[in-house]
């Protein structure tokens, strides 16, 4: 198995470890279903850590356990050095931004934002000032008197964020907060949230099923599947070196081939084609997955050579602005997807054109096939 230390799951230590939020051995079952099958995770101070997983992976349950809406059957949750496993949500000092914002529709924006301050018995004058400040911070100055329904989606998002941070929480939880926004606004809000989180040095736990969002926003990503954390690492690590087929398939676009190590640095694919492997290949006979990111194969000029080179014809072409995506059937009968910058040699290729692709053995990343 091809693993680097940074790509392997980190086992959090209950004491120390510098975790601002520490989750230790958390298990949560619902009848016969195990939603969380032993979660260990430490979020560092000032870090934005993303829990990424498909629906049903347990990420929402984990968020609820951290927020206090669910109590784990086993394990503990610590904020700093304080164990909060059984503390009521109100006693946790966590700011939360919900999927649909959960702004109180009967209160003005300012009243919404003042709500956590009021609950903490902050003096009126002080609270008003803090509300003003945070409104300016999220660029909603002057809109405090409006009702949530009088705001646009993006403005509601900002208001929800303001409400979650106004009382200086120990931890910021974001539960799929961008789901309701259209693409353009979503990207803008993502960057803004990231900027704000870094600016304020907030420790944040972010839950999403959108891998692209996770890659943009996170300091680190924890990929979850079936109640477990499969891989924990920086976006680059997760993208470049997924630990298994699931992570590989879930993060970014990829070509994934099932193969068996055939000796002499080659692997045999199901269809009979043979790929040159990277140097540290496992022993002969091992069943593996070969991951080839679409930007790795390059068109080969006539006569140029590569570790792996195949001729094929273009099935279809999709323009994505800066890049172009091609689906190509290689002559051994393998379909792959490649993505190249629009300008350059690829710009002129059309459907049914013949092309020769080449990539090195090191471009292939080996993952477990299971």
């Amino acid at each position, binding site marked *: 198995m091809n693993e680097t230390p940074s790509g392997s799951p980190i086992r959090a230590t209950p004491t120390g470890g510098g975790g601002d939020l520490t989750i230790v051995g958390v298990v949560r079952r619902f009848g016969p279903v195990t939603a969380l099958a032993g979660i260990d995770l430490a979020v560092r101070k000032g870090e934005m850590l993303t829990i990424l997983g498909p629906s049903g992976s347990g990420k929402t349950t984990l968020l609820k356990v951290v927020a206090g809406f669910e109590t784990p059957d086993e394990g503990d949750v610590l904020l700093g050095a304080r164990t909060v496993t059984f503390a009521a949500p*109100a006693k946790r000092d966590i700011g939360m931004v*919900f999927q649909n914002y*959960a702004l109180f529709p*009967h209160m003005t924006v300012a009243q919404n934002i003042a*709500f956590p301050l009021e609950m*903490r018995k902050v003096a009126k004058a002080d609270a008003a000032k803090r509300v003003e400040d945070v409104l300016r911070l999220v660029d909603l100055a002057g809109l405090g008197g409006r009702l949530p329904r009088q705001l646009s989606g*993006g403005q509601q998002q900002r208001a929800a964020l303001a409400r979650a941070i106004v009382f200086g929480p120990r931890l910021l939880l974001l539960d799929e907060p961008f789901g309701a926004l259209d693409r353009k606004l979503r990207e803008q809000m993502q960057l803004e949230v990231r900027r704000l989180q870094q600016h304020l040095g907030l420790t944040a736990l972010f839950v999403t099923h959108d891998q692209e969002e996770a890659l943009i926003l996170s300091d680190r990503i924890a990929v979850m599947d079936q109640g477990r954390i499969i891989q924990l690492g920086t976006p680059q690590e997760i993208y470049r070196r997924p630990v298994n087929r699931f992570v590989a398939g879930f993060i970014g676009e990829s070509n994934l081939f099932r193969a068996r190590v055939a000796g002499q640095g080659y692997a045999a694919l199901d269809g009979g084609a043979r790929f040159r492997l990277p140097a540290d290949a496992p022993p002969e006979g091992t069943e593996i997955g070969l991951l080839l990111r679409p930007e790795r194969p390059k068109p080969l000029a006539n006569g140029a050579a590569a570790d792996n080179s195949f001729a094929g014809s273009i099935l279809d072409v999709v323009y994505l602005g800066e890049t172009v995506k091609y689906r190509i059937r290689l002559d051994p009968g393998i379909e792959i997807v490649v993505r190249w910058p629009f300008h350059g040699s690829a710009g002129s290729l059309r459907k049914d054109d013949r092309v020769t692709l080449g990539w090195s053995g090191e471009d292939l990343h080996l993952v477990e096939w299971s």
Partner: protein
Amino acid sequence: MTAAAVTAARVPPDTAGRWWRGHRADTLLALVAAPAMVFLFALYLLPVGLLLQQSVEGGSLAPYEKALTDGLYVGVLFDTMLIAAYVSVACLLLGYPVAYFLTAAPAPWPTIGIVFILLPFWTSILVRTYGWMILLGRNGIINRLLLETGLISTPFPMLNNTTGVLIGMTHVLLPYMVFPIYAVMRRVDLGLLSAAEGLGAPGWQIFRRVYFPLTLPGVLAGVTLVYILSIGFFITPALLGGGKVIMIAVLIEMQVRQFLNWSFAAALSAVLLTATLLVYLVLRRLFRSDLQWS
């Protein structure tokens, strides 16, 4: 920040722009609502109009003068509105928790609860009223129980007085309070309660600041409904009040059925209608800022 400009720019097209879209929806809405409108007009507005016309038959305002100055009618009108207010409050205090139970209880309890609340609708109002007479009387079940257990030494007067009227009317009208509140409670986004909790609110603050305000439209609908229905009651108050509680509807009914003095009955009705509308407007006004969002 440019985002603000972008998001702000997103709003007008939905509301101000594409006016024809809104217009077409209005036309469609009008078509859909038309049968109900015709129904309302024919069976409500038209009779009310005829009633008002009858009250000024012969060009004299004398019936109004009498209705508005005669101590009997003014006094009974005031008493009626007071009783209606008591009944509304009693229904609210009882109905709100019941509506919450219906919303929150696990199956099959809500269904069972709804059946129990609807049960009175399937019995005639007279039967229900006699039922209360059996329960509340001097020798009724409740008094006998209390006497036998030694909790009281003389029967507690619950029948043939205002207490009896309030109990009976509250019973009859409770469903009209429960269902509007229930309908609103069911739509309350429970995520908002979690949000409030997560933001540091203790249980009763969640209720006071979030849940109750969110159910306020239902509360107001229920109170309005019960209040207005209360004002028109007469059989239950006459029977359970032992004749000592006079409701304005009794006086109106008497003018219509016994004395055939329809113009005075119409004038009394018009005064009652106006008073009721005024109460409604005052209620709306009082809670206007709390309802702006809905």
